């Protein structure tokens, strides 16, 4: 394997949102931000609104502007994580197993307001991927669920995740062992998630790494230095 896990995840996200023209990326989300910068480095006309930015932040109407943009349909893609994510696509950012988490942020609104909500959580375990969340911060139809182990699509009619690929050799069994909810499998012959190509890796390690280092210095150092 001649690439880092973060590079694989960023390339996978980039493929999911290749059609988007305006992507908003929340705080502490360096991998989704990397994906958007990769699309830009490939010359695609995608706008990124990076909430993390301390200077030259894209908004001039205060923090409500992001939600107003989303409410009007001016944002194509957004990312949500969760202390818990369940098999019906609900996310919980409030409380689990007696522990308190920061809170729902804008999730309850953003989930349905943007065209593509991608659920993204690196930890893939039965602790995170549960049969039923204890608190529904936000409900909706995700475009995909990406974890450190696998990529799931979403079947809107069945309200169920569909395993599309796994990242490492553990295969479907390993994904099943570590997933607390039931899911469908796309077909018998599903395989490993498509690895980053040479061209993508060149861009990631060149211009993208430089741009990411501005707003996510710790992350850039860890992955690319």
């Amino acid at each position, binding site marked *: 394997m001649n690439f880092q896990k973060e590079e694989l995840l960023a390339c996978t996200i980039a493929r999911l949102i290749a059609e988007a023209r305006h992507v908003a990326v929340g*705080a*502490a989300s360096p991998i989704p931000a990397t994906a958007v910068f990769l699309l830009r480095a490939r010359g695609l006309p995608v706008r990124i609104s990076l909430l993390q930015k*301390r*200077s030259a*932040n894209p*908004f*001039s*109407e*205060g*923090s*409500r502007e992001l*939600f107003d943009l989303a*409410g009007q349909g001016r944002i194509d893609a957004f990312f949500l994580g969760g202390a818990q994510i369940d098999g019906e696509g*609900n996310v919980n*950012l*409030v409380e689990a197993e*007696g*522990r*308190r*988490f*920061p*809170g*729902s*942020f*804008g*999730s*309850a*609104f*953003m*989930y*349905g*307001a943007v065209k593509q909500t991608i659920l993204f959580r690196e930890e893939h375990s039965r602790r995170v991927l549960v049969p039923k969340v204890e*608190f*529904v*911060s*936000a*409900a*909706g139809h995700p475009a995909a669920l990406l974890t450190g182990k696998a990529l799931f699509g979403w079947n809107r009619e069945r309200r169920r995740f569909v395993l599309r690929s796994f990242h490492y050799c553990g295969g479907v069994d390993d994904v099943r062992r570590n997933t607390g909810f039931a899911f469908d499998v796309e077909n018998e012959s599903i395989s490993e998630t498509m690895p980053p190509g040479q061209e993508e890796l060149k861009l990631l390690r060149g211009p993208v790494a430089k741009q990411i280092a501005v707003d996510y210095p710790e992350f850039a150092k860890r992955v690319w230095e």
Partner: protein
Amino acid sequence: MAGLTSNATAFLAGPDEIAERIPDGAFVAMPPDYSLPAMAVVRSLIRKKSRNLRLLGVPVLGMCADLLIGAGCVAEVETSAVSLGEAGLAPRFTEAVESGAIKVRDATCPAVHTGLQASEKGVPFMPLGGVIGSSLIERRNDWKVARDPFTSEEILYVKAIIPDVALFHARWADEAGNVWVGRRRELATISHAARATYVTYEEKRVGDMLEDEILAPGVISSVYITAVAPAQRGAWPLGVAQVYGIDDAHLMQYARAARTKSGFDDYLKQFVFASEVK
């Protein structure tokens, strides 16, 4: 509380004088860590042993809330989240909620903005898209799912939020009692919605900023401002854009100290109860 028509801004001596005017039990709206929190007043409130405050996060809160909660000043927090951002979970908030010491009225960011926008327009509620399906609604008696009168589809109505106090920091105040917050327009919204607005400022400008077409769009008019007080570096350890940045090292130091009650108390001793840090 002063009447809403009193528009003569009071000029106070400093953050302690603002803290004196915020009574125990007040419902206080505050901005997130990235949007000019009045940290000097937060420290004054802790020194004067404020009690039973209800905080409103517009739309989330950070270190200012964690400090007040840890110091026992807070009974309830209404917010979309409390976190220290890159420095991680807000430890005193987390502990206080898990032990039942404070109540949380969980919100979602645009619902806070919508409730405040209803107040600034003087209407009793406003509709907000989305949110339906979230457990948040079951816990809020001031949010109602009703029918859109035009399409009969379900929509969320958010009751107007009227804070007793809006509290924040500004780059400038002027002799007319106006304050300048630049692009941080959520601060304008909370000052429009609140019954009283108290603002600390970095520097005072001569004259009236509303006479300057370049400055005016970043100004909140004195009609909304109850009182201002000077507080140089009043947002520290948070920042004022292009004046001083966020003191990340201090935030990390705080996040580490506040993991335990004794570490937090030591932090208060050093940075709050010792004379105000300049």
